[in-house]
């Protein structure tokens, strides 16, 4: 077992312990009604973080299979929220069954097999083509394009993008063999820390809204402060990654920026669909999609940069997969 990884996970535990302590002190000291609501929400968020960190750490320590299953589940729950808010029609029903119960599991099977070649095109090519094929069988033409587009988006954002996170475990990184779990940790920590610190900076000294029409609570101070602090913290973890310090800083910046815009995009979709949160499954946070919206768009970008600059080759499945398929 990687002792660096254990150390990093303990560090997160210590951070959460501090947060819980601060939350407890705040709850004893807050007087105003508005403050009480904010602190109650903060403490609900912190309690949810404990659960999320525990589940994430356990799966990371248990290995690739468990991590893949965890992210498959996360994709399923996120897509469920995405489709629930979208006005789907009776004619979409069978297509949706395929998306949830056939395309999603097959795609994560490719993650489990480390078969990058097919993984990369399975949803953008095969599912993209199949979904309108199946929908046209229903005979309903009204809303055809918007229906198929909604389902294709759901698969791309909730399944394809998210699945790049567990695929990080399969990257054959130069001089970093067998330590990929730390790369996954670096990615998830940076994206989530960026969210948390933007929230903290925004709540403490946020003034100027940065995107008032899309996400009224995001402020310029929160965004800059949060991204700046996250890049600093993530850069200080360069020793646990295949990156040099300046590379770690650039990667962290990329994750933060993609996370920021990803969050805005998901917020815009949410508003377009007339909702405030994607769901109510995680106390204090909203739905699963509210927690992973910033990961969605950052994950494929981070994966490709890691693959292009730091990997020997793309991940390849074991030989028996091809021979079993008669190639």
């Amino acid at each position, binding site marked *: 077992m990687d002792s660096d990884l254990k150390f990093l996970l303990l560090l997160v535990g210590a951070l959460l312990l501090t947060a819980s302590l601060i939350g407890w002190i705040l709850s004893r000291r807050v007087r105003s009604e508005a403050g009480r609501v904010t602190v109650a929400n903060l403490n609900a968020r912190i309690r949810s973080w404990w659960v999320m960190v525990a589940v994430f750490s356990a799966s990371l320590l248990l290995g690739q299979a468990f991590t893949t299953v965890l992210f498959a589940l996360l994709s399923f729950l996120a897509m469920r929220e995405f489709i629930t808010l979208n006005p789907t029609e*009776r004619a979409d029903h069978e297509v949706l*069954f395929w998306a949830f119960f056939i395309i999603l599991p097959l795609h994560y099977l490719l993650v489990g097999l480390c078969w990058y070649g097919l993984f990369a095109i399975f949803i953008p090519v095969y599912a993209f083509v199949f979904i309108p094929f199946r929908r046209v069988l229903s005979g309903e033409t009204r809303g055809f394009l918007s229906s198929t587009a909604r389902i294709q988006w759901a698969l791309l954002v909730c399944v394809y993008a998210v699945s790049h996170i567990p695929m990080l475990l399969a990257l054959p990184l130069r001089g970093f063999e067998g330590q990929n779990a730390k790369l996954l940790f670096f990615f998830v920590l940076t994206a989530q820390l960026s969210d948390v610190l933007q929230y903290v900076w925004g709540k403490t000294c946020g003034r100027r809204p940065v995107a008032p029409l899309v996400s009224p609570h995001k402020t310029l101070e929160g965004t800059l402060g949060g991204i700046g602090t996250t890049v600093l913290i993530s850069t200080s973890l360069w020793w646990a990654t295949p990156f040099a310090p300046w590379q770690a800083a650039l990667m962290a910046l990329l994750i933060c920026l993609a996370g920021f815009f990803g969050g805005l995009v998901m917020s815009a979709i949410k508003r377009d669909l007339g909702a405030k949160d994607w769901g109510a499954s995680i106390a204090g946070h909203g739905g699963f999609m509210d927690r992973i919206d910033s990961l969605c768009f950052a994950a494929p970008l981070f994966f490709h940069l890691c693959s292009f600059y730091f990997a020997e080759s793309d991940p390849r499945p074991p030989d028996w997969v091809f021979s079993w398929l008669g190639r």
Partner: protein
Amino acid sequence: MLLHSAIAAAARLFTGVRRLPCTPQNEPLAIYYANHTSHLDTLVIWAALPGPVRVITSPAAAEDYWNASALRRWLAHRIFRAVLIPRERIQRDNHPLDRLASCLQAGRSILIFPEGTRRSDGKVGVFKSGLFHLARRFPEVPLVPIYLDNLSRILPKGAYVPVPIIAQAHFREPIYFDASEAKPAFLDRARLALLG
């Protein structure tokens, strides 16, 4: 009992419907009524009730549908303890209202779908008069409206496979029978209470 809880938990997990911490009415006995949107409705409301309330509640269920296979029969009799209601050839000796009334007399709550049939458009249709007749026979029993949202998207009419969309069962404030009210006015009031 363990099996009941496991089935209820699985139903809640799949549909996203939450379990009620307590019922909206004070006394245990009630007539629950809901809009009818899919074959999952009975299961989902049954699963949303708190455990002790669930064991004393019998849903009304269509006899022809729930007697059609061994699994459905087992679910209806052993799990839901349903009151099976004939939909055709109704005579004096098998009248649905009598079956429901004897269930209430025995101290068990009931669940009915006053629209009589599943709607496929997600709207709430006109109520049939069964709810009125039951309420008149048991004026002291609270009538608890339940609005089911999104269930028709999980398993629409004519579909064979479900899709995991998140549904909700909204339990509204109970209403009571009013002897001074005519049937159409009562049914309207009951329908509006369900829409919330």
